[in-house]
Each structure stands twice: as C-alpha cells, then as structure tokens.
C-alpha cells in the first residue's frame, strides 16, 4: 500500500511527450517568477493564455452540436436548460509547447466566448420571525444579521448581472421546505443559505465553516445540522428518503466546489482583519434546507455570535460589507469555474 515512489521513475504514460509537458510547466514557473520580478499582480496563468481563435470557433460549432450529449455527463443534465457554457471546451489554447498534443489536458476557452451559466441565484437568509436562530445576550440575532447580509450580497450580485431572489424579504418565519421549493420554482442555478454559528466551546473561538449536503459522522456537524433543521416541516420518514436520494447525486460535487470557493474567500477576507479566525473548512452535513433543492446548494456559517469579538464586529456595517463581498467573490469565482467547464 505504501510502496515508495522512486526518484525520476517513468511514471508518465507518454514517453516522449513528457518533455513537452515539462516545457509547459517550466515556462509556467518562469512566467510566474517574471510576474514577481516585474511586480505584476499574481494572476492565474491559464487565464492569460491566448486562444487560437480560428480553432476556438471551429470548436464552438462542434460544441453547440454536442451540447445535449455532454451536459448530463457533467452533472447539469437535471437542471432547467443546459446552456453551452456548461461544457468542457476541448479547444486547446495557444500554448506553443503543448499546442496539439491529445494527451495533455485541454486548456479552457476563456469565459467571454460563452454566455453566463450561473444566472439565477437564490439567497436564503437563515431563520426569521419567531425563529431567531442564535442570539447574543445584548439582543443581536442571527435572523437579523443573515437578512442584512443577504441584502448586501444581493446588491452585489445584482450589480454583476445575476438574477437574485431572497427566500424571505423581511422578518418572517419560513419553513425550510418552503425555502427549497422557492429555489426550485425559480429554477435557480445556485442556492446559498446564510447562517451565523454558535460555538459552545468557549468565547475565544472564532471560525468559519461552509457546508454542502452529504452524510457526516462528525458529531459537531450533526449537532449543528439538527439545530438548523428544527423548523423543517418535514416528516421524519420523508427526510430519510430524501437523504438517500440525494447523497449519490453528482450535484454534491458542484455543491462542494461552490462551498470551497465561498469558504476560501470568507476565510481570506476575515483573516485580513483577524488572523486568528479558524478555518473550519468545507464539510458535508445533512442540512434539510439543502436536501430538497435541485441545484448546487450550500449553507455558509459565516461567523459566530458566541464570540464577543465577532459579535462586536457583526454589529458594524463595514464588517457586514466585508462578509457580503467575500460571499460575492466566492460565488463569482465558482461561476467562472463553471463557465470554464470545471
């Protein structure tokens, strides 16, 4: 099981072409260093590659034809209308060394070639009405914060051209299944549920975690899921059946990718202010609000009211803007990656 990997062993499946792959990697390393030398901002290398346009357009025609065949394989087949943008573009970028090598992985066609795929986003501010969620002794409530964050996020998404719907507009109580139904009815491309955490284990603890739907044996996640599931409106039997039907679905991969993207931005942004905040990572747990949604869906616990420091920051407009901006960037980055086909 743990056999050693030798130095310079011939692990690559393609003997001679290995050199071309190496050239590609080396020029990537050189380019990355040049950027530092020239004091250019660190970018994503592959986005900067030029596309050979004639090839790209030839490929585009073929892609349009193959769209319906490929879409289900990518896990998007269940959704409303598969758009060409969801496809993996097997057109090669103008990378000289590896330009026409069928064994090297394809580079993506830039996003601009395709229409936007993630268009409709449903935001779900956690709790509401008589269900306050968590709250501090000073009266700051989760339901108020999540709604405010959702509004700030909606404004940003709207500005970037997304169609945004909130599951609740005001301080109203809404069953979890209602929230999911709304997202399904709108044929949303993404569902993002916003919550604020509470850690029992000490006021000093501060952390961010993002969940997607899936099984878990982490007792913490189970406890959290059951707390967030209180208002579900589902019968227990329904729940079991629902869970079984979704765990195996491909949607999980997309949700995980979305969760990872959001988590990363949140952590990075919050740590600019408070380096000590814990990255509690991307996790899966059986949150019911995620169960019944038909699109990639996540639940982000963006902060925690149990920490005095977080509670103080959460009362500030600047901090809420920061969280909303990070959520926005996470969603944005995810939809870009989808546009690229990943």
């Amino acid at each position, binding site marked *: 099981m743990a056999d*050693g990997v030798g130095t310079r*062993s011939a*692990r*690559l499946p393609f003997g001679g072409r290995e050199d071309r792959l190496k050239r590609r990697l*080396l*020029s990537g390393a050189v380019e990355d260093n040049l950027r530092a030398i020239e004091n250019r901002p*660190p970018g994503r290398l592959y986005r900067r590659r030029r596309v050979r346009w004639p090839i790209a357009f030839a490929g585009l025609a073929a892609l349009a034809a193959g769209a319906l065949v490929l879409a289900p394989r990518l896990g998007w087949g269940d959704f409303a209308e598969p758009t060409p943008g969801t496809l993996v573009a097997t057109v090669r970028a103008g990378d000289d060394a590896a330009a026409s090598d069928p064994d090297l992985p394809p580079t993506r066609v830039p996003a601009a070639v395709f229409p936007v795929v993630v268009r409709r986003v449903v935001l779900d501010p956690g709790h509401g009405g008589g269900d306050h969620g968590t709250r501090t002794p000073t009266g700051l409530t989760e339901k108020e914060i999540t709604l405010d964050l959702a509004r700030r996020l909606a404004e940003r998404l709207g500005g970037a051209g997304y169609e945004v719907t909130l599951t609740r507009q005001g301080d109203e109580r809404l069953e979890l299944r209602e929230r999911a139904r709304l997202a399904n009815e709108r044929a949303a491309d993404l569902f993002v549920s916003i919550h604020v955490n509470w850690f029992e284990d000490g006021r000093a603890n501060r952390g961010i975690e993002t969940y997607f739907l899936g099984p878990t044996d982490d007792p913490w996640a189970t406890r959290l899921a059951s707390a967030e599931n209180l208002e579900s409106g589902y019968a227990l039997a329904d729940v079991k059946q629902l869970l079984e039907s979704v765990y195996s679905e491909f949607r999980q991969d997309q949700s995980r990718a979305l969760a990872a993207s959001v988590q990363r931005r949140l952590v990075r942004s919050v740590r600019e202010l408070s380096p000590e905040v814990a990255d509690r*990572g991307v996790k899966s747990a059986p949150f019911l609000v995620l169960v019944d949604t038909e699109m990639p869906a996540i639940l982000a616990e963006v902060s925690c009211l149990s920490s005095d420091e977080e509670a103080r920051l959460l009362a500030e407009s600047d901090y809420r803007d920061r969280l909303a901006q990070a959520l926005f960037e996470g969603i944005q980055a995810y939809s870009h990656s989808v546009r690229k086909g990943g």
Partner: protein
Amino acid sequence: MSGKGQMLSVGIDLGTSQSAIATSTGARHVVDSYVGWPVDMVAKKVIKKPVLIGTEALENRSLLDLHRPLEQGLIKEGSEKDIAAVKEILGHLIGLAGEGGKEQKVRAVVGVPAETLRVNKQQLRQVMRGMVDSLIIVSEPFAVAYGIEALLHTMIVDSGAGTTDFCVMKGRYPTEEDQRTLTKAGDSVDDLLAKLVAERHPAIQFTIHMVRGWKEQHGFVGEPQGKVVVTAPSHGKATQIDITEEVRLACQSLIAPYTETLLDLLAAVEPEYQERVRHNVILAGRGSRIRGLAGELEKALADLGGGKVSAVEDPVFAGAAGCLSIALDADDSDWEKMTA
C-alpha cells in the same frame, strides 16, 4: 552552452523545520531551519560566532535569540529578524555547496511552502539578491512533483512541520486553486501529543522537543506494531510510560483534514480525471514517515470510490532534488530572465 562549465546549479528546499540543498556537482546537505544570534556580550564571548545555524543553534538556545523563520510556512510580516534568519539559512546552504574560492555563477531554484510563495515572493527575491546570480522560486509540492516526474493527474501531499501543502497536478503550472495549505501538520501533531500525554501522565515532565522526538521515532496510525514506551522524568526520577494510544490519536488527527482537503481539491478536477488523481496520491515531507499514513488515507478514500497513496522514497531531499531538476531543465534563455 560553453558558459555551463563554471555554472553551479542548485536546488534548495526552504522548509519550516529543515532546509536542504542538492547541487549539479552531486553535493547534498541538510540543516535544521533554526538561526540564533547571541543575546548579549557574554553570550557572544561564549559562542564566539556572530550567528549559529541548525542543530548548533538549537543546542545553545539558552544563549541565543532563536528564530525558526518560517513558523507557519510564512515569513512573519515585518519581522526583520526572520528575514535575516532566512538569509542566514540560504547563505549557509549555498556556502556548504559551493566549491570554495572558485569563480562560479550560481543558478538557484528555491522551493518554499505554498503559503510563503503566495505572500512572501517579493521578499524572498530580495533576500536572495547578491547570493545567487539567477533565481527561480517555486512551491515545494510542485518541486516534488517535478522531481519524481509525477506531472499529470497526480496529487502531492507535502506533510511538513508548520504546514501540509496539497497540490494537484493538472498538466499546468499549479495555480492558487490547484493548491491548499493546512496548518494541520507535524507541529500540530506535536502539540496534540503533548496535551494528551500531559492529561494522562500529569506528573511527567517533558518538553516539546522530547515530544517531537517520540513522534518521529514511534509515529503511527492504524494498528500499532507494539507498545510505544518512552522514558521521561517524574518527580526527578526517570520513569517509563506507555504512550501508544496518545501517539496514535495525535497522528490520527491528520487523517480527517487530509481526506477533506484531498476531496476538496479533487472536486475541482475534471470528472474524467478524478479517478486517476485519486490513484496517484503521493506523500512527501518527513511527515510521510508516520507509519501507516498512506494506508489509512487509502482506507478513507476507499469509502469514496477508492484510491492509491504512496510515499516518496527520500522525503528529506525530494524537494531539493526536484528543484535541482528544474534548475537543470530550464533553458539558458529562461535563466537570463531570472536575474536575482
């Protein structure tokens, strides 16, 4: 090509706990990443050197202002002393590798933790100025992948002291989204082991250095091969304690975060290649020496479709050797652009 006669190419792995160098002349050296300056005049007299590096520094730490400059894989922002310490380590390694007195041009490829690369790249270039003629800085896991030619559809897990770096190789120079850095690594295992031992044996006295030694000697996950019994003082008397379960628990704490991160990165791999990546997970870094680590990760992956995990043969030099390969493979024209 004619210039290559006086050209020395070096690969350097700049690590949190150890740094290593491998050169085109076949030299290999490793040094603990500790740097210490005498605290006062008295210390200076005793030490008789302006600065100590590696084990020497560790052994004399009571007389020194001791720095381990890449504590969490990062050079601390604005810490002049840590920057100076990095400079000392690199200078020391290059000094060991150079052939004294000879006029040579030095081309260096330096591998650093992914997080350092993200945050401190400019700083590192400045530190190296004057030490080498040209310089390429890469992330440590990329260097490892390059060195063992695991270039495509592979995942490198570089288990170090301050950080564990994950890097998935997709046939391109890894971008930020191909890499992840966890602070669950050797140091966090040490901390946990210390806590567990202290809880179970309140009277035992030990230091974090002892704990690290126990882990390095006995670290395992899964089934123990025998009892882990170590000796430590209790009320001034040497006492034997059984820490089998504590060692297992501490090392085991890596499995869940490692698995989660593997999956996280896998999710961003194109579906048709995920299977191949899952079967090409390669452990590097000295943390890979925890017995049973590859097997336990395979077990965790088994529930998720299966996978194969192996470990590099020589975790001490895998990074430096990879850097050297990069240095030797890069064209002269590339190197010309990389003036330090």
